[in-house]
């Protein structure tokens, strides 16, 4: 609980001081697992004052963390590792079900609701320099949605 509060405090202070040329990570969360389930996903919103990209992520809870994209092709769900997620300056990029996520694989223990998962997110800027942002992602129930019920899209 203390971790959640401190991470909220950190996010809040970042929002309050956007002059820092730092990537802002908000609403980071991880879907809980059931016992023996070996993988899950992390979701969040990212924004950066300058062009950058998310190139990798890591977590102390597992050695295998990958950046993935989900796509539907002809009613077939495909999930692929992507080399990077582009973050154009000033634009909020959402990692959410139906798009990008950070995948935590080969889990050794259950990820339980109420806990947090530390994540280190590595961003590579245009000039080649790297920045690491650490967040404590809140663990939400298996049946958590990114947002309350969305209106269906105009896909027909």
């Amino acid at each position, binding site marked *: 609980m203390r971790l959640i509060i401190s991470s909220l405090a950190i996010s809040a202070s970042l929002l309050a001081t956007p002059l820092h040329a730092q990537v802002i990570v908000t609403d980071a969360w991880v879907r809980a697992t059931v016992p023996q389930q070996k*993988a899950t996903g992390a979701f969040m919103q990212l924004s950066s004052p300058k062009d950058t990209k998310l190139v990798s992520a890591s977590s102390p809870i597992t050695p295998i963390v*990958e950046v993935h994209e989900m796509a539907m092709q002809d009613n077939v769900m495909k999930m692929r590792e992507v080399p990077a997620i582009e973050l154009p300056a000033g634009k909020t990029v959402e990692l959410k079900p*139906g798009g990008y996520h950070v995948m935590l*694989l080969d889990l050794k223990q259950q990820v339980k609701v109420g806990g947090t998962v530390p994540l280190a997110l590595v961003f590579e800027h245009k000039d080649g320099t790297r920045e690491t942002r650490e967040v404590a992602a809140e663990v939400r*129930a298996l*049946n958590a949605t990114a947002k309350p019920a969305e209106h269906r899209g*105009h896909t027909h």
Partner: protein
Amino acid sequence: MTTERRSFLRSAAAALATWAIAGCGKAKPASYHGIDITGASYGRDFRLQDGEGRERTLADFRGKAVMLFFGFTQCPDVCPTALIRAAAIKQLLGEDGDRLQVIFVTVDPERDTPEVLKAYANAFDPSFLGLYGDPERTAETAREFRVFYKKVPTGASYTMDHSAFSYVFDPAGRLRLVLRHDQSAEDYAADLRLILHSA
């Protein structure tokens, strides 16, 4: 066609008309949101294992509408979304929700076990069933249901590409509809209501 069924179709037509006026799309003739595949020569039955090690077939669910889809528990995105929607559909159905059986079949028998599938399905609704078949049975079932699945390496592990549509069986155990992943809980619930009241 019974009067009851006709009145349901009429209310569905009215709903669709309202929906069209609301500017969400063009009007369709009163029918299902899903594709009607009544009489299909495939998807006749399955023989899979539940979390208690019992063998389950469609005959176990007579009197209920069955919504069946395929996935795997290591799937962070489409599978939870489909199960969350299934729970929403059950809610939308109100009392009829008790006559809906949701079944989640794994396409990843190497990693999923009957126990994990049971815990996983139950995390979304205690009535949901997760079913397991060994690799051979999984392949047979997928063939019977024309479901595509494929193991794809990713970094240090692998993921499964798989068909993300849902099948609906009527309370007599006949395959009736197929719905897409991008259809709403409301679409699914409307179709299931028709299926439950027209059988």
